[in-house]
């Protein structure tokens, strides 16, 4: 246990999973230091993303202990799902990670189709890839905007990012009927077939999305203050990240090559040609840059998907519309959501309601190493580190 006696001390210092972040924490008893100052940030705080609370114990400026507190947005989503039908849980999955409802819908539909053994037509698979990648663009641009807000700019990068996000969100609204609560996927396909005009508008929008990324990178990636505030902050090495179950951009920033779109190649990602960017330092700057590079890769995937979108039905003709009663059994379906691996573990006992409905929340599990990342840094850095992990409280607390 390191002197501050926090949970990350369950690993001996020598093991590869010991915390590596920040300068070694001073022992807190030498005369020059006053007593520790306990600062509780949140749940009502401008820079915690939603109702998230961190109790940080400060020794002067340095963080000695940091305890996240959860539960302020807990609705027991899983108990609700156990008391309603399979179809009725679909709109609730929009409310898990309310920034990327379409990819969470896909994860739930993917798991349910695995449970039902339900095939999905080609056009629906392509539509799912298109909408999931557009959701990745929305989520990453939001995240990058909020990260700079934590770094202290007066909303300028956030508003540039939101200007682009709004265009994509308007496309979602004209297709699914709602900006963020799309409720679009069904077991066996999609709900609405996009019109040719919609596809043309989406293709053109995605085509000049890189122009926004270039403007963004020119404004911020080389900015000296940005480099000083994020490089070397909140470092996580590969072994530590894997062991703590980090997934998504946070994991790839530490140099671990693990992207479910390549590993599982679920849906039609096998046919898509794209690259997976990897970081070397695993600090806040890498996590920011990986997301920018992932947006560029998503634009490539979208271009290919729009080009090869086949005609055909969007819903498997034999698929039931409601009243699904899967045979007793269980299934675990997982996809590469913008925040990491989002998975649904469904157990059915033949009744119309699932017996057990479990969501694997990437936001919550990515917070496992929050304390290790913040040790030794100042409170201003902990705000930036939290911003770089990209959490959404709907998914953390469920």
């Amino acid at each position, binding site marked *: 246990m390191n002197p501050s006696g926090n949970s990350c001390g369950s690993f001996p210092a020598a093991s590869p999973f010991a915390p590596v972040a920040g300068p070694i924490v001073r022992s807190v008893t030498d005369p020059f230091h006053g007593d520790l100052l306990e600062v509780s940030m949140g749940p009502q705080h401008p820079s915690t993303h939603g109702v998230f609370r961190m109790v940080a114990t400060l020794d002067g*400026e340095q963080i000695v202990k940091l305890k996240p507190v959860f539960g302020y947005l807990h609705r027991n989503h899983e108990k609700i799902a156990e008391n309603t039908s399979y179809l009725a849980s679909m709109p609730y999955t929009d409310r898990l990670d309310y920034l990327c409802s379409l990819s969470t819908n896909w994860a739930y539909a993917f798991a349910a189709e695995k449970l039902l053994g339900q095939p999905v037509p080609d056009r629906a698979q392509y539509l799912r890839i298109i909408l999931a990648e557009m959701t990745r663009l929305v989520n990453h641009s939001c995240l990058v905007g909020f990260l700079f807000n934590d770094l202290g700019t007066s909303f300028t990068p956030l508003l540039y990012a939101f200007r682009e996000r709004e265009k994509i969100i308007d496309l979602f609204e004209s297709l699914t009927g709602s900006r963020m609560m799309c409720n679009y996927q069904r077991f066996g396909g999609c709900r609405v077939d996009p019109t040719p005009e919609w596809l043309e508008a989406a293709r053109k929008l995605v085509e000049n999305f890189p122009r926004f990324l270039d403007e963004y990178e020119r404004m911020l990636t080389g900015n000296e203050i940005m480099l*000083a505030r994020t490089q070397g902050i909140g470092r996580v090495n590969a072994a530590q990240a894997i062991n703590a179950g980090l997934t998504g951009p946070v994991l790839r920033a530490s140099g671990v090559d693990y992207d479910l779109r390549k590993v599982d190649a679920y849906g039609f990602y096998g046919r898509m040609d794209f690259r997976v960017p990897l970081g070397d330092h695993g600090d806040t700057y890498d996590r920011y840059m990986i997301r920018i590079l992932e947006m560029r890769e998503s634009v490539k995937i979208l271009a290919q998907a729009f080009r090869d979108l086949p005609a055909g039905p969007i819903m498997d003709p034999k698929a039931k519309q409601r009243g699904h009663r899967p045979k007793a059994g269980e299934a675990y379906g997982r996809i590469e959501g913008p925040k990491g691996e989002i998975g649904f573990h469904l157990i059915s006992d033949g009744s119309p309601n699932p017996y057990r409905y479990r969501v694997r929340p990437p936001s919550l599990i990515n917070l496992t190493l929050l304390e290790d990342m913040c040790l030794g840094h100042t409170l201003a850095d902990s705000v930036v580190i939290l911003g770089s992990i990209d959490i959404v409280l709907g998914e953390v607390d469920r």
Partner: protein
Amino acid sequence: MSAVLASEPFLERAPLELRDAVVQLLPAPAQWLGHHLITILAVVLGFSLFFAFTTVAERKLLGRLQNRLGPNRAGVPKFSILPFHLRHKLFGLSQPFADAIKALTKEDIVPAAADKLLHFLAPVVVVAFSLMTFAVLPVGRHLVPVELDAALLYFFAAGCASELALFMAGWSSRNKYSLLAAMRALAQLISYELPLILSVVPIVLVTGTLSTVAIVQSQGVWSFGLLPHWFVFTPWGFAGFIIFLIATLAETNRSPFDLPEAESELVAGHLTEYSGFKYALFFMAEYFGMTALSGLGVTLFLGGWQAPAPFLEFIPSYLWFMGKLVGMLVFFIWIRGTLLRLRIDQLTRLSWQFLVPLALLNVGNAAFWSLTAHWSGPLNLVRWAIALALVVTPFLLLGRTLSAGFAPRTYRYAS
């Protein structure tokens, strides 16, 4: 005075003529008092209106930087007495008055444990001292509120009391976080007071005087009829101006250094326990400080009320001063819309390891400049080259040590 005045174009004389006309109305003994009261009134009213429109200009400019409109809703009430209902939004110009009324009507909460006297005194001291700094700024050719021999020293003497007020605000709120924030703000102000004054020393060294009026007059020369002799166009002057800008940003807690107020974890810093008009006073003091320091920057480096070229002299001098002042304020707002915030240790390191050494070297550079004033012809080019070298090389060397280890990275892709 009036002999020189007579030869000036009418617009130049207008403000003084107006004042003398009003002073004549008063009975003889009160005329001396009237004369000074009008100057004080002009300065206080002028710069308060300037403050009011700076706030709305800041919000509209920031809006435009961020692809949105600034405030344009506060307007004259629909059933106003105006005969014609001009588009009653007035393009947001009525926003500052709306803010003032809001600040006045907001309840002024004083925490029970607060030290009542100090809590009340802090905003008063900070606004009083920042208003006093306007006394020595030469707004126009003859428009100097007070002509002092040691004007620069007076300016910094008046400006330094804001630290005291900041401490009083932080201490009297009896709140752990506001005291912590006050300490941080003090550390920031003190560590940036040095580069601020050091960047002004070269000007005093070259002109040999502390009086702002004399400094502006010494910048009144144009070579080849076109290039003004403003100090910003000399190598040491340019370096001094940049250091002055950075130090001014820090002194007035503006964008990259707005640690105390907008600190994400101490929320409102030493102003947490203030509300209502006292908070507005702190806000006003910050803007007065910014305007005063930009005014000083214009006076010292950008040639005060001097016109950029002789043939532009017909425009009255106070318009030139106001133009340059607005230019600098726009630059501050532009910086606020773009840059991120520095951490407290980076901020103090930037001052002690980067700005202070550069400012000291700049004083040496100015000394070299004034000693070699008599070089002419080819020697002049050598003089400029040496001066430029003295500015650029330390900047590059110190810059490299400061940003050691920080560079944009290239990324590999999974095979």
